C-alpha cells in the first residue's frame, strides 16, 4: 500500500506539474509572428545564383524549410510543387530552403521528387536560426508587402488545402 507520505509526494508532484505548465503556457512566445516584416536573407540556389528575399517584394512568397532526412518534408514536396505550378503566373513564388549538411543529397532528392521551384541552400543554418525554426518542416507565407501572414509548423495530410486557401487570399 502507498504510505501517506508517498501519496503526499505524488500529489505534490502533480501540483508542481500543473503550476509549471500553466506558467510555461504563458511564457511560450512565437518568434516569427504574423504582421511582422519577414527577416530578409540571401542564399545560394541549387543551380548557382544567389536569391534575396527582399527582391521578391510585390509577389506572394511561401518559404518552406525542408531536409532530405525529414519524412513529412518529402511528403509535402509534390503538393508544394503543384501549388507552385498552379499559381506562379499569378505572382506566387515558392522558396524551398534546404537545411541538409550535404548539398548533393539535397539536389539528388529534389531531382527525384521533381521539384521545379527554387531550392535555396542553408548549410550553415543561419536562416533557420533567423526564422527560429522550431519544427521540421515549417512553412511561412509572406504577402506582397513583405509581411509574415501565416506560419505552419509541421505537415499533416490536408495542410495543402489550407495553404491553397491562404495563397488565393493573399494573391487577391
Amino acid at each position, binding site marked *: 500500500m502507498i504510505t501517506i507520505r508517498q501519496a503526499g509526494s505524488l500529489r505534490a*508532484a502533480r501540483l508542481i506539474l500543473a503550476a509549471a505548465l500553466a506558467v510555461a503556457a504563458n511564457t511560450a512566445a512565437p518568434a516569427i509572428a504574423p504582421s511582422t516584416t519577414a527577416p530578409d536573407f540571401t542564399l545560394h540556389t541549387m543551380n548557382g545564383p544567389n536569391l534575396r528575399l527582399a527582391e521578391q517584394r510585390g509577389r506572394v512568397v511561401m518559404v518552406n524549410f525542408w*531536409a532530405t532526412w525529414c519524412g513529412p518534408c518529402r511528403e509535402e514536396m509534390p503538393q508544394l510543387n503543384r501549388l507552385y505550378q498552379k499559381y506562379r503566373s499569378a505572382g506566387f513564388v515558392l522558396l524551398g530552403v534546404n537545411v541538409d549538411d550535404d548539398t548533393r543529397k539535397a539536389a539528388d532528392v529534389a531531382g527525384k521528387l521533381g521539384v521545379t521551384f527554387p531550392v535555396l541552400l542553408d548549410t550553415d543554418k543561419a536562416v533557420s536560426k533567423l526564422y527560429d525554426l522550431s*519544427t521540421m518542416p515549417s512553412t511561412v507565407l509572406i504577402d506582397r508587402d513583405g509581411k509574415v501572414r501565416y506560419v505552419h509548423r509541421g505537415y499533416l495530410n490536408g495542410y495543402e488545402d489550407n495553404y491553397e486557401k491562404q495563397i488565393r487570399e493573399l494573391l487577391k
Partner: protein
Amino acid sequence: MSLRHSLALAAVLGTVLVAGCAMPRLPTLEPWVKPYERERLADPVMKLSRDTLPEKHFEHVRDVREGARGATGVQGGGCGCN
C-alpha cells in the same frame, strides 16, 4: 529508494525540464538541439532499435536461456519455455 519514490521523483524532475523557469532560482532551460540540427540523429545507424522481428527473436532467445528479463524496449509476451 522504492520504485514508487523513484517514479514520483522522475515525474517532478520531468516537470522542471518541461517548464524551465517555473521553479524559482533555476535558470531557463531551452532545448539546445534545434530540429534543423537533427540530421545525424535521423540516420538508421543512430536508431536504438531498427527491425522489429529480429530483435524480438534475440529477446525471446535471451528470455528463455537467461534468468534476467525486461527493460530492453522490446515488447514482450508469449512463452517458449520448457
